[in-house]
């Protein structure tokens, strides 16, 4: 717990908080100010927008401890604010709410528009409201309501006080003062050990579910199909070809247990899971069906990796790989899906590249060494592309994605 002093709706509050308590939770749970709504809790929807030092901010993605000595204003404190009173009347007249869930955030953002942009036209109002999502899609009425109050302001029928001079820097931040250091808590390793244990997923592979990634790659291995087929039968040699992955213990017939660690900037994942192996000798096709859970974020992943061997010129073998994966939980929810897509593509590229190298090299080494975490972000696409070009040049069959 960290001591915290701040002003909420004009009242001085002194209360200890856990640093991880975000401002909205502090207002709702500690002060019982429930007009502030919470929905996405990742800064996208705007339902939690409140005023800090008179300016709108998201209260879900900053923590209460960051607002030492700041002035917080929630809807409860704006009851007698003339602009807010005008907005309430306009929202009512223009039918600007249905379920009301987004309304607190809409009102706070609308108040900012009226005060800061008195000349805003409808297009500008829509742009300024774009950070507040209405799940009833009732934007038409909301935009009209804001327009109505803007018209009142321009007509001079709405009394507006002059804006306060504003401090430079993040709203609510003050100059820090020296304090005694709190007692440091346990480092991550200890905390992780006490976290949720990795649980085996009952269903391996996608089953009937739709993947959210599907990536196809082909390469030619300078070995005859019989040898390549035998290689894919040795799972302890295939798994280390996937960056950051390793087997946990020896392969047990058709089932294996594994682990995969990937680092991407501030994000670290540590997936543990299980896979089932199926092989069709006559077709020279096989499938690795796996599922796992990230110990850190609780994200879940399931994947089917299909491989198919086709004889190629000069006694060599073309290997076709299809990776279909389904990601659920925090990693999938995270608003930057392009980055996750790109990562999955690069992992597949490197998997194909390592397989090709293991198959074409003299005697590929293998062992039960602990995996090095795959540092995904550190790898520049350009560097990677240059290294991959030699592989691509040897590809036969259909073009790459």
């Amino acid at each position, binding site marked *: 717990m960290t001591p915290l002093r701040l002003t909420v709706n004009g009242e001085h509050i002194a209360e200890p908080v856990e640093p991880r308590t975000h401002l909205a939770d502090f207002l709702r749970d500690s002060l019982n100010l429930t007009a502030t709504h919470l929905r996405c809790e990742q800064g996208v929807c705007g339902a939690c927008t409140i005023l800090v030092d008179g300016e709108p901010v998201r209260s879900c993605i900053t923590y209460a*401890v960051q607002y030492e000595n700041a002035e917080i204003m929630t809807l409860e404190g704006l009851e007698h604010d003339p602009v807010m009173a005008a907005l309430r009347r306009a929202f009512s007249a223009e039918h600007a709410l249905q379920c009301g869930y987004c309304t607190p955030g809409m009102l706070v953002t609308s108040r900012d528009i009226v005060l800061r942009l008195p000349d805003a036209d409808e297009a500008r109002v829509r742009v300024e409201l774009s950070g507040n999502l209405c799940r009833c899609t009732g934007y038409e009425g909301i935009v009209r309501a804001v327009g109505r109050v803007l018209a009142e302001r321009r007509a001079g029928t709405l009394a507006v006080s002059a804006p306060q001079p504003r401090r*430079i820097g993040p709203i*609510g931040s003050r100059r820090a003062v020296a304090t005694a250091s709190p007692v440091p808590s346990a480092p991550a390793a200890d905390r992780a050990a006490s976290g949720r244990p990795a649980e085996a997923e009952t269903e391996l592979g996608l089953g009937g579910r739709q993947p959210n990634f599907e990536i196809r790659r082909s390469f030619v291995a300078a070995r005859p199909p019989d040898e390549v087929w035998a290689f894919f039968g040795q799972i302890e040699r295939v798994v280390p070809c996937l960056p950051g992955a390793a087997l946990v213990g020896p392969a047990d017939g058709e089932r294996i247990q594994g682990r995969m660690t990937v680092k991407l*900037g501030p994000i670290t994942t540590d997936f543990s899971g299980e896979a089932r192996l199926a092989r069709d000798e006559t077709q020279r096709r096989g499938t690795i069906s796996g599922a796992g859970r990230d110990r850190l974020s609780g994200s879940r992943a399931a994947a089917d990796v299909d491989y198919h061997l086709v004889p190629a010129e000069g006694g060599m073998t073309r290997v076709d790989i299809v990776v279909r994966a389904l990601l659920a939980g925090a990693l999938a929810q995270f608003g930057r899906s392009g980055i996750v897509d790109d990562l999955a593509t690069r992992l597949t590229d490197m998997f194909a590249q390592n397989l090709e190298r293991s198959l074409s090299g003299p005697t590929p080494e293998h062992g039960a060494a602990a995996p090095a975490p795959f540092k995904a972000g550190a790898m520049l696409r350009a560097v*990677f592309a240059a290294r991959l070009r030699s592989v691509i040049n040897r590809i036969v069959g259909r073009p790459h994605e």
Partner: protein
Amino acid sequence: MKPVAFDYERPQDIAGALALAGRADVAVKFLAGGQSLGPMLNLRLAQPDLLVDLTGIAELKQVGETTDALEIGACITHADIEDGRVPDVTNGALAAVAHGIAYRAVRNRGTIGGSLAHADPAADWVTFLAAIGAGVVIRGSGGRRVVPVEEFMTGVFETVLAPNDLVTAIRIPRFSADARWGYYKACRKTGEFAYASAAVLHDPTRSVNRAVIGAVEARPIVLADAGELFGRRTGADIAASFVPQVAMRAMDTAGFKNPIEQKVHAVALRRAVEQACAR
């Protein structure tokens, strides 16, 4: 949705922040406005032991001006730049770019230094500041150094920063009066991260002619001499001489090869050039 438990410190000065970052026993993360890190913490994608809040450090909220450049403190917000609380040395460019970042409530907290240090490839400053030849002022165990923005980001969410390096300011070169600039980003929805972006600065007085292709899920692609992009012409009508093949070649060289994405990014660049001409 709650982050994992972490400790929190708000040092008074840069030396205090660097001392905390030097702790070897815990995973430390610097926190500025928190508009990108907050969501990652809430989703438990980032799990630091200690957050070091930089927003109490007065030095990081200062602006310094010289004859050829402006130094913007790392903790100055997008809204500060949008509203003109920072002097303009770029013919309005920084204010216009700042205005297009996310939403007002986010701009009131989000900082220019935090955005660069976070190194999201689709973020606005990473692309635009690379185009105008800005520099990142860094303080760390090795003293003070300035790294060009185009070399600062090394990959998705990765930069040249060592664990106890701190971005203290951004150095913005002063534009000439006749400098023309353009910035275009393609988003599905207003305020979202871009799926393609591009920026151009044509400042003949300073012999600067730069273009950048951004939002490529990697470090932005910089054309430090963009003359070829306009068939070596200069002046107000360079858009008429725009050669998209030059942009395509640059993307090829950078390993950004998907033909559809290449076209989308080339269109973003053409629109940035058209904007520059219309100014």
